[in-house]
């Protein structure tokens, strides 16, 4: 009985670990998929991303956003970033980012990384 409970606990912990977002993996995904257009500390083709978590969409000073993004009132948190990464155009119609992150795990890991910037 005791052994069975321990096994269940181990399985539960393993499942929790697997489900938890992974910022290190997110950093690798960021480099591979986002780094073509975005810098962490410099505006490039896209805006710099340090501090993106928790700020209003289209509000990084010094970047020339599309009118749609500049007018947005969306605050970027876990839920809204997940929506944005899954489908930017559906989230803020008229914006300019054509890139989508289709996989929910990838989105979660990217958001975990962005949250730490």
């Amino acid at each position: 009985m005791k052994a069975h409970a321990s096994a269940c606990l181990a399985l539960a912990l393993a499942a929790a670990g697997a489900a938890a977002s992974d910022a290190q993996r997110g950093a690798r995904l960021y480099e591979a998929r986002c780094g073509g257009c975005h810098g962490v500390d410099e505006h490039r083709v896209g805006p710099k991303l340090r501090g993106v978590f928790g700020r209003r969409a289209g509000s990084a000073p010094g970047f020339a956003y599309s009118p749609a993004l500049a007018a947005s009132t969306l605050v970027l948190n876990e839920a809204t970033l997940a929506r944005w990464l899954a489908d930017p155009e559906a989230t803020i119609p008229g914006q300019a980012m054509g890139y989508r992150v289709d996989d929910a795990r990838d989105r979660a890991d990217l958001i975990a990384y962005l949250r730490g910037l």
Partner: protein
Amino acid sequence: MQSTVSRRGFVAGGATLSAGAIALLAGVPMRAHANPAADVKILNTALALEHEAINAYQLGAASGLLQKPVLEVAVKFQADHKAHRDALASTITKLGGTPVAEKKLDEYAKALRADTLKSQNDVLELAARLELGATNAYLGVIPSFADKQLAKVAARLAADEAMHWAILANALGKPLPGALSFGA
């Protein structure tokens, strides 16, 4: 940092974007188009990437850090990006859009932290990073195009960037990537 780039290792290979490819790009939007405004936005993002690449190679070429054979390849790659730029700008115009303007070289230098480039390897690392980023960006936007011909063009541009990256990575002594590594 000592350069690991050798004349033999940095192969001056690869073809320029063919006249046929440019014609394809220029001739794409000649039919009914589902959502030209959305496609123009994606194409303008691509054009902004090409502007950045052209200026990155300009910064590298003007740095005085590149050996002659490496410089020749950098100039060749820059010419490829100029061909991409011209083709993208032409297509954007044909779709009724306005091509995004190139910024000043100083702005690219700041954004790319050109002041940190101290060796030939530094320049090649930057170029490789940008080429890989562009490859993945082009691959990533393929599903977003309303016009499948434009999606095909994005794939062809990605192939050019991947070719650039492969030559740069070889010159830098990087290991071969695994299968299906681009766009992942």
